[in-house]
């Protein structure tokens, strides 16, 4: 059995990156995720695996360094928090438009604007609906534990390369800052040039040798050709939606009511469910693990059994829109949220349940 460690979510991101054979990390400090780059710099992976770690001059530069590294078919990543992720949207839409794989970690804090540094989930729209300009999606994974921070680094890269699409780990200040037990993944070597040739040889910038030149671009001045490209992108997203939905159901078998929550809110809701069940309310939890693709089907299937659904988010209610689309009016869907960095307590969620469904 792998060694169990006590680590912060942010530290685990760094450790998992080194262990999964990441080639490069480019970052810029911002609370509450600065430990990612600090841990990497202290670990000096360039001496161990050859992984590059660079502190960029801005989030703009960091994401464009990621773009450059991704152009080479390398496993590259960045991490930031909400205001920094807003700056990275320009680079992300170029990366999505050029169909490049990369991993972005967003340890969300309260907004809008400079906002707070406390945990929030108010960047769900930005993460799941594109974020920058143009019709595109990131693949979005929402960890609810430090262990998932470890596991989703590898999974994020796997999905990113499988679909040539940027992947995002959408965490928040709770998951980034807390320490829990974690089993770190075993080391995987970085890809060799031969492996990169095999995996990404048809497009990566490796130097024009014995082949046509490779050009990575998202520019196409002809509207019809650009539409054709968009159709291809959309076909890819339909494939992702069909194959990559992940979610967890807790105590749903006998449930009359359902809470839908992701990330740290899902953890808090588990406590609420314990409390509600002690009070005789049969309630379950559906936790989306992928926010894009969203578990629309799984939620729709619960409509026959469930009398009401409550989404709990640390936001004004963003995911609730996707839940309502899934439910399509068949069941009452309510939202309970706290904003600006305030974390809801398990007790107030139980109260919200009782109030909304007159229990």
């Amino acid at each position, binding site marked *: 059995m792998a060694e169990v460690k006590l680590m912060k979510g942010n530290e685990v991101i760094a450790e998992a990156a080194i262990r999964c054979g990441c*080639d*490069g990390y*480019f970052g810029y400090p911002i609370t509450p995720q600065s430990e990612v780059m600090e841990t990497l710099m202290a670990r000096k992976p360039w001496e161990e695996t050859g992984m*590059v770690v*660079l502190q*960029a*001059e*801005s989030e*703009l*530069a*960091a994401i*464009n*360094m*990621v*773009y*450059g*590294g*991704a*152009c*080479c078919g*390398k496993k*590259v990543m960045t991490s930031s928090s909400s205001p920094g992720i807003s700056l990275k949207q*320009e*680079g992300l839409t*170029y990366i999505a438009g*050029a169909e490049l794989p990369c991993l972005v970690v967003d340890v969300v804090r309260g907004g809008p604007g400079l906002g707070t540094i406390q945990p929030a989930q108010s960047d769900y729209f930005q993460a799941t609906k594109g974020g920058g300009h143009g019709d595109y999606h990131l693949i979005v994974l929402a960890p609810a534990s430090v262990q998932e921070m470890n596991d989703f680094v590898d999974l994020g890269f796997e999905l990113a390369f499988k679909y040539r699409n940027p992947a995002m780990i959408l965490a928040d200040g709770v998951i980034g800052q807390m320490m829990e037990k974690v089993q770190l993944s075993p080391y995987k070597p970085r890809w060799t040039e031969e492996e990169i040739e095999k995996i990404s040889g048809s497009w990566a*910038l*490796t*130097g*024009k*040798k014995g082949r046509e*030149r*490779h*050009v*990575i*671009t*998202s*520019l196409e001045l002809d509207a019809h050709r650009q539409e054709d490209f968009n159709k291809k992108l959309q076909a890819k997203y339909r494939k992702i939606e069909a194959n990559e939905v992940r979610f967890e159901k807790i105590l749903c078998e006998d449930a009359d009511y359902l809470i839908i929550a992701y990330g740290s809110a899902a953890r808090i809701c588990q406590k609420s469910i314990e409390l509600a069940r002690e009070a005789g309310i049969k309630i379950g939890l559906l936790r989306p693990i992928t926010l894009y693709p969203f578990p629309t089907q799984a939620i729709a299937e619960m409509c026959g059994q469930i009398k009401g659904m409550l989404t709990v988010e640390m936001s004004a209610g963003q995911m609730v829109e996707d839940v309502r689309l899934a439910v399509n009016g068949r069941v009452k869907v309510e939202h309970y949220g706290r904003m600006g960095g305030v974390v809801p307590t398990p007790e107030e969620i139980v109260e919200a349940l009782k109030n909304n469904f007159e229990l």
Partner: protein
Amino acid sequence: MIDIQDIIKPENLVYEKSSLLTDNVMHYCPGCTHGVVHKLVAEVIEELGIQEQTIGVSPVGCSVFAYNYIDIDWAEAAHGRAPAVATGISRLHPEKYVFTYQGDGDLASIGCGEIMHACNRGENIVVIFINNAIYGMTGGQMAPTTLLGQVTATTPYGRDAKLNGFPMKITELIAQLDGTCYVTRQSADTPGAVRKTKNALKKAFQNTRLQKGTSFVEVVSTCNSGWKVTPVEANNWMRENMFKKYPLGDIKDI
């Protein structure tokens, strides 16, 4: 009567197009400096024998399509971000020759942060900076390098320092950074100037081979379409006005 076949014999060859220049018809306006500099970049890469190890990063601006003309691997960067993209490529391919090709709007305005910090880190790359004192692709608006009094689409009464600030000598600023090993300003308005620019580009790529840090080659250029003059008038205007503000020659060579 001489037959065409007699003329095109190899021994009669005095000049040929670099094999690295593609057959794509360039979209540049007649009289534009980009075509000349593209040709020089292709020749230098060919002469150094580094086609298979060179990766270019094109900007946003008129040279956005540089990747259509030089037969190497290319990445197209967002406006101003080419030095950051080149950093990512160069750090992950430290043995490769990585260069950016940027105009004045891209490099000195929106990408001012990226170029300063890439040069300050001494990224082992070549930066080719085309300074024609105007935004060409978007239709001739003011650039940071636009001269005082110069008429553009957004300075229709001439650039006024009070309203628009001063022409920016970014190359001199770049030369102050310890990460740069070679900073030079050249032009391409005469055969002699073209030869000098080619030598500067060659030195810059050789610096990459020697892992010396950032080499920065500015080419003071014309944009006769944006300046609303003929190509010949553009060259004259450049010599009379731009060379005064942007004097040619090496600023740093270590």
